[in-house]
């Protein structure tokens, strides 16, 4: 008995994985997870769901930062953990060798352009993790890649050096000015919005890819629209299931037909067209444009 989706080679798997390495890098914890049959299916913009410790039913989402082959373990995925809540702190504290139930890769990935176009990638904090595999794929396709990285401070700036290897130029903005342009403590969304128009102009951007908190994504989507570029925004929504089963992570989006629909951030997202998301209504339920439009 086959079901229509069971044949898709990119679908998610639920497997027992193992932490191969765990390393503190700045404010974040970088994990490498051996996950049979998951890594091969990963695409830029997809994520894995990981447990949050004993007694916690919800799961936590982590962008897939990279995929690599590890001798003796087959393939592994790399994730970046920002240990801010009890679940992520638990995960960051687990030693190598810990076995975890891993679900992934989940979500719709970034769409890649068919032609070699000019791409601007905008990443903030740990969210920038999903942009590194994207940058490599874009470069393989002959696209020009320009990166704007933002973080509260240097310890939360993800691998600017690595970004420089794939990108034609990298602009860095930090809230405290520890690296790159200083924000003098202004909200990062404002700093990104201030820096972005010039970056888009200089790159003559056709497509903008962004991974950041929603406030920043909203500004990126607007800036892209201002210069006539497409935008693809990777939006992180709280779970708890992350697999599309619970409808907990509804995002209001406008369809081609101009009607508003509530879609699941984990399944129809996490990558959504920036011009389609009703950013001002995020978290709420906008009055539907049409009754039949859900």
């Amino acid at each position: 008995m086959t079901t229509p989706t069971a044949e898709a080679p990119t679908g998610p798997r639920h497997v027992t994985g193992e932490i191969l390495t765990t390393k503190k890098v700045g404010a974040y914890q970088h994990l490498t997870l051996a996950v049979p049959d998951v890594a091969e299916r990963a695409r830029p913009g997809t994520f894995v769901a990981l447990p949050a410790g004993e007694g916690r039913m919800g799961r936590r989402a982590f962008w897939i930062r990279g995929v690599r082959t590890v001798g003796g373990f087959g393939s592994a995925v790399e994730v970046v953990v920002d240990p801010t809540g009890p679940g992520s702190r638990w995960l960051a504290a687990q030693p190598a060798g810990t076995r975890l139930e891993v679900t992934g890769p989940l979500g719709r990935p970034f769409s890649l352009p068919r032609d070699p176009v000019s791409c601007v990638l905008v990443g903030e904090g740990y969210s920038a993790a999903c942009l590194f595999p994207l940058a490599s794929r874009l470069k393989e396709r002959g696209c020009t890649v320009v990166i704007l990285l933002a973080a509260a401070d240097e310890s939360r700036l993800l691998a600017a050096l690595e970004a420089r290897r794939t990108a034609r130029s990298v602009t860095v903005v930090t809230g405290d000015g520890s690296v790159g342009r200083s924000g003098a403590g202004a909200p990062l969304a404002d700093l990104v919005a201030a820096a972005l128009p010039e970056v888009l102009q200089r790159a003559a951007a056709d497509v903008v890819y962004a991974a950041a908190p929603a406030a920043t994504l909203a500004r990126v989507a607007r800036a892209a629209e201002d210069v006539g570029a497409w935008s693809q925004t990777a939006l992180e929504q709280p779970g708890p299931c992350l697999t599309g089963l619970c409808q907990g992570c509804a995002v209001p989006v406008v369809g081609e037909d101009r009607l508003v629909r509530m879609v699941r951030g984990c399944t129809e997202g996490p990558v959504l067209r920036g011009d389609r998301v009703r950013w001002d209504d995020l978290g709420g339920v906008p009055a539907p444009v049409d009754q039949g439009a859900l």
Partner: protein
Amino acid sequence: MGRHVATTTHPGPVLVAAGCGGTGRELASYGDLSALGGFVTRTITLRPRPGGPQPRVVESPSGLLHAVGLQNPGLDRFLATELPWLVRAGARVVVSIAGETVAEHAELARRVGQSPGVAALEVDLAEPDPTDWGLVETREPMASGLVATRIVATCRRELPRDVPVLAKVRLDPLRVLDQALGLAEAGADGLVVGHSLPALMPDGRHAGLSGPSLFAVARRCVAEVHAGLPTLPVIGCGGVATAEDARAMLAAGAVSVQVGSAMLTDPTTAHRISAELAADAAAAAESTGAGTRVGEALA
């Protein structure tokens, strides 16, 4: 009596509970839907519903608090898209419905009953806060009967005889038998016991509590109904997360179990429990030399 789902080989007593299996497509990535005892759809209303604001589901030390607000595409789109897909995937589809009036339930039941491939209808009479979502108020005392029994009688009347009506009731151990008596008399072919418990979100909004903390209460409710109405098929629903839980629920008198919030932590839970129970049944058949009929009666 439509006590049996219209299939010749029943794959076991484990179903996915309403609202915990997505549209079915997401779940199919992790396991064949036809391998389960049934798939209960998210609760379908006559008109589309956008659901409530965020946060919709949050962790609590004893489970999950949820106020999704019955987001669903409405009956028309459900019948046109989600149901045919589930039937094609081989799922035994139990369609969960809720309505704003008794008349709406009649329309829902009639049109679901006319659709090919529906194994059973589950009437959601146990939303913790029905009036918050504009649903008909079913919280009045059940024994006196009125709305809940009228809804069940109406659905029974509108459905073909071979499509069972399952009534989903609250986890109220002291009153559940009274409810069951009234609903069985009204024509319910089986009972789903039960739903989430009324609770509050951290921000003070109404919510339902689901999860492992409900298991012992749900099991008590199953036992109460089974003791008073031993011939009424009862499906245990509430905090089932392991094969051990499922066995305990069956031992208390349930004919099958529904797995709900545990699916949100591990989407393979229902398949895993189902496989373990099948192994039990195979071992029992081996030792007695007779075929077991575990879970033959879904409802």
